[in-house]
């Protein structure tokens, strides 16, 4: 089993700011965000892209930060849950989440919300199969899927503006 490559300097664009980091290129983006940039809203849940708790946007695409080496996002734009309320859609999704009591323990919700925002950007009024397709990679152990689905439909109908 090989050890990680030595440090390099990376200029990362995170939430609209350019951050200089000096890390191994193999270090997953999740741990760069959490431990180098102190952005702890993106969560560790499985470390293998199985649960979606670490979902961030890389150039707008929902991405599992736990398996994305930092070298893969050099020169790209990363958005995390911390910056989401700065966009109109992000703020609406967050309002839907609080209004409909979507979170229970809440640990998966950063990832759920990032996945939902990416879905609604791509498909403003998704069907149930499209919701299944886009959101089944995000596990909610508290089982709030019906509420997430309801929130997505209400958002698609223009709710929480």
């Amino acid at each position, binding site marked *: 089993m090989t050890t*990680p490559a030595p440090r390099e300097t990376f200029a990362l664009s995170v939430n609209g700011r350019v951050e200089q980091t000096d890390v191994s290129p193999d270090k997953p983006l999740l741990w760069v965000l*959490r431990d180098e940039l102190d952005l702890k809203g993106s969560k560790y849940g499985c*470390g293998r892209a199985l*649960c979606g708790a670490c979902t961030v946007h890389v150039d707008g695409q929902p991405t599992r930060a736990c398996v994305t080496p930092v070298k893969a996002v050099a020169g790209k734009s990363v958005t995390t849950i911390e910056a989401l309320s700065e966009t109109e859609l992000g703020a609406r999704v967050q309002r839907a989440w609080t209004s409909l*009591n979507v979170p229970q323990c809440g640990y998966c919700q950063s990832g759920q919300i990032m996945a939902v925002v990416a879905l609604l950007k791509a498909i403003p009024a998704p069907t149930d199969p499209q919701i299944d397709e886009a959101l089944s990679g995000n596990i909610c152990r508290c*089982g709030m899927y019906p509420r997430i689905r309801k929130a997505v439909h209400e958002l698609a109908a223009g709710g929480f503006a």
Partner: protein
Amino acid sequence: MKKPLLRRDFLRATAIAGGGMLVACKWDSDSSSDTPAPRGTAADNTPPTADPNAERWTPNAFIRISADNFVTVIVGAAEIGQGTMTAIPMIVAEELDADWQRVSWEQSPASAITYGNPFWQGEGGLGDLDQAGLQITAASTTVRGYYTSQRRAGAAVRQMLLEAASDQLGVSVDSLTTRESFVIHEASGTRLSYGSLAAAAAEKSPPSAPALKSPGEFRLIGQSKQRLDAREKTDGSLAYGFDFEIPDMVTVMVIRAPRFGAILQSSDDSAAWDVEGYLGSHRVPSGLAVVGTDFWSAEQARKQIKTEWLMGSGEGLSTADLRDQFDTRNSLPGLPVRNDGLGVLSSLNGEITADYHFPYLAHAPMEPLNVTIDYRGSECDIWCGSQWPDMDALVAATVLGLPVTAVNFHNLLSGGGFGRRACLGFDYIQEAAHVARAVNRPLKVVWTREDDIRGGYYRPYTACRLSASLAGGAIDSWSHRVASQTLLISPLVEVATGLVTEEVQTSQGAKEMPYAILNVYVDTHSVINGVPTLWVRSVANATNVYAVETFFDHLAKQAGQHPLTLRRELLTEKPRHLAVLNAVAEMANWTPQTQDNLYRGVALFASYESLIAQLVEAEVVEQNNGTHKVAIRKIYSAVDCGTAVNPDLVEAQIESGIVFALSSALFGEIELEEGVVKQSNFHDYPVLRMYQTPAIETRILPSDHSPGGVGELGVPCVAPALANAIYAATGELYTSLPLNNNPSLVFE
């Protein structure tokens, strides 16, 4: 030393700097200067007060009213997602007549004496401490346990505020009313805020038996309020234990035994030193503690370390062997826990018998276990999401050789618990304390998902033997024998709970079989083996109710009766059971005459002072190869939980229970092969996902009964209702979970 009066009803009020008041227990203790962060209110999470003096923290407080008219409720129970930090403040605010927009919450310190759940009073087996209760968030007891004491506290403070206003205005208390954090003198139109009265109210004696509202007077209880912790759970700002940091902290992962009970013999970390950030490793009782500067360095270093283990006696067990072992136990008599009529005799010769088998299950909360600990020789601070903070603090103190008063346990909101964070073996907290002693600097012990799935403390492997006889189309006798691994593995727990004979954690759900059958016999076996086990959400109800409710449908069919009709016949003496059953049938528009392309199954049960009936609608289609394809279309629940403090959060708990239960019904299983756990992460220990989740409809029946528990209520009936729906189509009794293991079933 004089013993403190451990009567929760003796409240004591104190004026606090800045003009507010604080209501605390009679038995005051030393205060500390620890100031927790202010938390959210319904008014968009505004910090409760701008005055730092009004924020002074006193460890035994229940309610704080600040001069700027904010109410803070200090909550003893843990928030593991179930809505504690909303429901408990609602209960207090109701009797206090507080403005819900200006009510906030704080997590209490770890202290059973002050914050223990009154539900457990007398259950502790610890002498005087019995009167305090345990500070454990388990068994769906939070709302029902704290309900009365929190109402009394709110009502007492309201009375004191009224008396203070009466003094100030020179009018009688009877001429005053309260509304939304103001005392109102209608005759003069005067309104005095609670905040302005708080300092004077603190001088009043708390009434020992304040009048409580009748349900008709409730303004908050019964309303679907938004969660007070919703905002910080949607913007990434809530620091769970995994996110919590202290200065100069290092991160520790532990290489634990590859087989339960194995002992570390030797280790070689020479390759780990090539990993930047690796800081060394230390032997601890549970294995080898690998220290890194952060998660990733610890994880990378851990992969480079080789370990050798002493396996102890034997090569460890294989779950494939347990089926026969447990069936053998179940052919012998167990400890009788129920014997109605001639039950004991009839149990020996039932003409219809079925053997059920249930696998080990892991809790798999979304936030893996972690403990942040700062051990400084003579004292220690711990930050951890715990369902049992007072015992976790005590166990840590014991390992560290400190008095429990030297351990400051800061309970954090948990990313799920399901029982794992109330560990009877105290594994993660003991380990963290040992690591802290060995490493001797501020640190966080983190568990990866693999550590979590392979870490033991599973729902116990369980087998049930059900046997019954029919006579003249009726069920004449019923017997239910349970063999399950004992949960009482820790002597500490035997001391703490006083349980010595019947193991309720094994018999529950079997003993309470609700149907009117003349001859009933239930007995249990407690099996001991080397796999650490623990309660998982709804504990033995999940397995026993599955056996009861599916066997019931099997008997109904043998007796030529519709399962709905036979249930109604045998529940005529139980109106609340009957009401949930009838309600769920009505919701699904299901009668014994229904003929359509759907198959339905129902199950019901009562526990936690609540009742539930659940109904599964499924399409079941036979394929060319003889298998059946099953599509679960909808799950209905009818709930009687007494007073629903926050109906939307009750519904959320039922929804949550259904998804949790479907995960285990369909594919939840932990297997061991020669002692090694086979599963490791969500690819081979799958849990339900969005596309597998059916439509869910829940109805809460109106009730003025005091609140029952709901956190586990939605779990036990889902799997049997599903199995009964499939049984209606195939006539096959499914006696093993998970159902996906059955080669004749294919789930859509």
